[in-house]
């Protein structure tokens, strides 16, 4: 009887520990093999098969039905270029040139991985919608306050950014840590 209770305790405790480890590594963590480029990070194994079980699980949780690297390369940012976590009460400037891809877009998501409700129903800036200066550079604004141009609205809450590169140049997959991607600077907080 005593032994049966001990066996039960081992099974219950072991199961809880095992599930807790899964929660922290897969659901709370980010895919292994991440490559960093400034505030942006990517994982080129996204969308391919035969990767390790952790990456596959994390991709299923965070990047379900993502395309492979030839079709799309996804970068994510959770913090600005100075390493501070994004705060939706603040205004940030995203500055740079068009990344080397047929098409690109920067989209803001709430921490539940869905689009952020806002009265303007805007969610991204893209190659087609962004306004550039004569030198081909653009500055986009992330802010809860209204901006007419190049504006990505956020709510007063933490958020993350996704940068999608559709049909990226071969150089991106070859060296994803050294792509000329936009910088993200915090300018003010309300």
């Amino acid at each position: 009887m005593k032994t049966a209770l001990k066996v039960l305790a081992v099974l219950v405790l072991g199961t809880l520990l095992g599930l807790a480890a899964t929660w922290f590594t897969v659901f709370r963590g980010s895919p292994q093999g991440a490559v960093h480029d400034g505030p942006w990070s990517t994982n080129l194994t996204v969308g391919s098969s035969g990767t390790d079980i952790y990456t596959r699980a994390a991709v299923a949780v965070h990047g379900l039905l993502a395309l492979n690297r030839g079709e799309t390369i996804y970068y994510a940012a959770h913090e600005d270029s100075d390493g501070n976590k994004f705060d939706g009460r603040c205004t940030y400037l995203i500055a740079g040139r068009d990344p080397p891809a047929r098409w690109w877009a920067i989209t803001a998501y709430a921490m539940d991985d869905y689009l952020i409700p806002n009265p303007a129903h805007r969610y991204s800036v893209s190659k087609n919608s962004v306004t550039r200066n004569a030198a081909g550079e653009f500055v986009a604004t992330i802010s809860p306050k209204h901006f007419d141009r190049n504006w990505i609205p956020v709510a007063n809450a933490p958020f993350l950014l996704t940068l999608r590169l559709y049909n990226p140049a071969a150089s991106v997959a070859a060296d994803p840590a050294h792509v000329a991607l936009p910088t993200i600077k915090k300018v003010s907080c309300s």
Partner: protein
Amino acid sequence: MSARAWTGWAVATLAVAVAVHIASVWYTPHAIMDIVFSRMGAANVMHHQKRPDEHTRGIVRPSPDLLYSACRFDLSNGALEVKAPVPPGTYWSTSAFDADTNNFFAINDRTVGGQPLELIILPPGQNNEPPHIAGRLVIHAPTTRGLVLIRTLVNSNADFTNIDAVRRQATCGTWGAGRADANKGG
């Protein structure tokens, strides 16, 4: 209880934890795909979803610049046939995922070669391939169940109506049983 007995129980607990952990990580993609399937409506039918916005739930991180058309497939009753016109002047792709979320096929508006997509997806292990028809692609699915996803980029809001109308012509369905039978052994 002796120290040795305690150690034995601790090792047993750890062994259970490791086994449960690995099994649950391994099973996670399959479980998530099951949830996706359950939310997607009837199998072997193309579902043309409206442009994603803040109310769109179900698939994480939807792109607000893309139009998604999805066909959850079940090859229990035979092969699947996907037909899709390619909207002009924009990025378009069709990709297929197995029941464990692995991406096993992808084609885009450039690689499709200037004609509508005609794709046959055979069940795993089926060898009676349909007769070769120029321009028609035939692939094998790694699992009986899976998902075909068509992405169409909205280049500009001005193009939306036209692009949306073209991508809604895409269809998917069980490939004609009579034709498949006629091809057996041939």
